[in-house]
């Protein structure tokens, strides 16, 4: 990289009591790129981000934000923050909150444009307490961006958004990136990371378990994956019995069966044959496509956190 990194985290450690929530984590983010931090619940994403925002004190390692220490006052006008737990004053009206945060900056973004882009006008006169979850998220995002920052930390910006709001948020975030802003976001939504991220960092148990571009993560994976959706619930045992050993079958929570391993035409034939015998109609069969979700589950396992 020719320009210095916007964010440089080296060997970060954050402990709560005797528990190491962040355990030697490295993270780099660059101007004009979107870095997604992925990881299961409790992986240490928020702890990491909040150490970078100067809100938590690291127990080890170094954090440099735009070349400065994270608690440096000068960063306050150059870094935008969207917290996972909101942090918006609840008694004030949504529009007033945004105007108020804008007043903290010498050259804020155009408040009207932000309101318009994120559809805030519809509830600008509603108090924050009465906003829906997704409306609050959009207001919090507007507050993070209103100072026209060089670096933004967005902790789960996509949580609770409907498809329209998600599209608006994605467009805005892409535009920031294209204007040279360094964007760091955390998410559980694999499609969000896949759609937006230039760089992905997968975190588990406070450590980085994989990093790279979405493309690199997808091709570097161990197997190809096949996804099978059926009209009726798929009989897992029958499917298993019909397949060669070496092909792994798993039922996802949404009812989709995923098969990992290299699938041959014969395998597909046997698979649909077994389903036909059970009277189960195939609704959707996708062979050999891996999503970030597959990689994520492969890396972090299927156990609940």
């Amino acid at each position, binding site marked *: 990289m020719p320009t210095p990194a916007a964010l440089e985290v080296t060997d970060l450690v954050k402990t709560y009591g005797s528990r190491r929530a962040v355990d030697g984590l490295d993270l780099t983010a660059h101007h004009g790129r979107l870095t997604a931090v992925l990881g299961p619940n409790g992986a240490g994403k928020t702890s990491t981000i909040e150490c970078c925002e*100067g809100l938590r004190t690291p127990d080890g390692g170094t954090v440099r934000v735009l*070349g400065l220490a994270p608690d440096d006052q*000068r960063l306050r006008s150059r870094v935008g923050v969207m*917290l996972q737990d909101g*942090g918006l004053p609840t*008694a004030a009206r949504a529009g*007033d909150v945004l105007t108020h945060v804008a007043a903290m*900056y010498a050259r804020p973004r155009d408040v009207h444009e932000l309101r318009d882009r994120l559809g805030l006008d519809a509830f600008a006169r509603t108090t924050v307490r009465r906003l829906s979850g997704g409306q609050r998220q959009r207001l919090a995002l507007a507050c993070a961006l209103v100072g026209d920052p060089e670096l933004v930390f967005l902790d789960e910006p996509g949580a609770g958004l409907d498809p329209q709001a998600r599209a608006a948020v994605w467009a805005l975030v892409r535009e920031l990136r294209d204007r*040279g802003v360094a964007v760091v976001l955390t998410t559980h939504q694999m499609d969000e990371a896949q759609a937006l991220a230039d760089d992905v960092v997968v975190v588990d148990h406070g450590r980085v378990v994989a990093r790279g571009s979405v493309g690199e993560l997808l091709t570097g994976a161990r197997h190809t994956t096949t996804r099978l959706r059926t009209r009726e619930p798929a009989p897992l045992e029958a499917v298993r019995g019909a397949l060669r050993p070496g092909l792994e079958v798993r039922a996802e929570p949404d009812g989709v069966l995923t098969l990992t391993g290299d699938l041959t035409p014969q395998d597909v034939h046997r698979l649909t044959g077994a389903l036909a015998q059970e009277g189960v109609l195939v609704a959707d069969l996708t062979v050999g496509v891996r999503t970030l979700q597959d990689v994520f589950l492969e890396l972090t396992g299927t156990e609940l956190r």
Partner: protein
Amino acid sequence: MSALDGTAGTAGAAPVARRLAAQTRFELAAVLRNGEQLMVTIALPLVALVVLTSATAIELSTHGRSRVDVVAPGVLAFAVLSAAFTSPAIATAFDRRNGVLRLLATTPLGRSGLLAGKVLAVLGVQLLSGTVLVAAGVALGWRPTALGLVEAAGLAVLGTAAFVALALLVAGTLRAEAVLAVANLVLVALALAGGVLVPVADLPGPLAAVAPWLPSGALGEGLRAALTTGAVPAAPVLVLIGWAGLLAAAVARTFRWD
């Protein structure tokens, strides 16, 4: 393009005076919009002033003065107490619980600006309630001297320092629901038994011994002395300064932002 001019020190922040003014206005609006807070900071003292002055059925030891001379300073002390303690304690506790303190700390306002805005808003509320109460007192026949009012304002500032510190002490350590209860209970206890509404001399023995050493008693007695005799004894001033320093140090050690 802001992302590339890596130089800008605090250039991107609004001037400190503008940030503080904005935060003060925002906090002030929050108090004025909140019915309960308006109630304890303005309506309640106003009602107390009118009722205690005019309802002669309630016995007061006036020591030869008119009723309003005795009532008005105590009511002003109560207004200072509720605006500086109860109201910011509750507001700050809920801001802390909702993450507002953390979010605003990441903007150019910062933590110090946030606290300064709260203190200025308290002074703003007191200016408002003080004006209303003095005007109401005058309408009821009270005639404070200009000197007395100036001294009273000075004492109110000292009392505010001590009570805002106490407010931050509870708001920064206890859960929001606990603060809600504590802030109101302490207000009632100090108003009646801490030398605020009821003069120390009229309190039962043990309380009368303790109250002058409390910030509430020092404020109440100080205001009564300033507004009746025009002379402020040193004791209440020193007691208030002592409490302000002690409580501020405690806040600095214990305040949790999240």
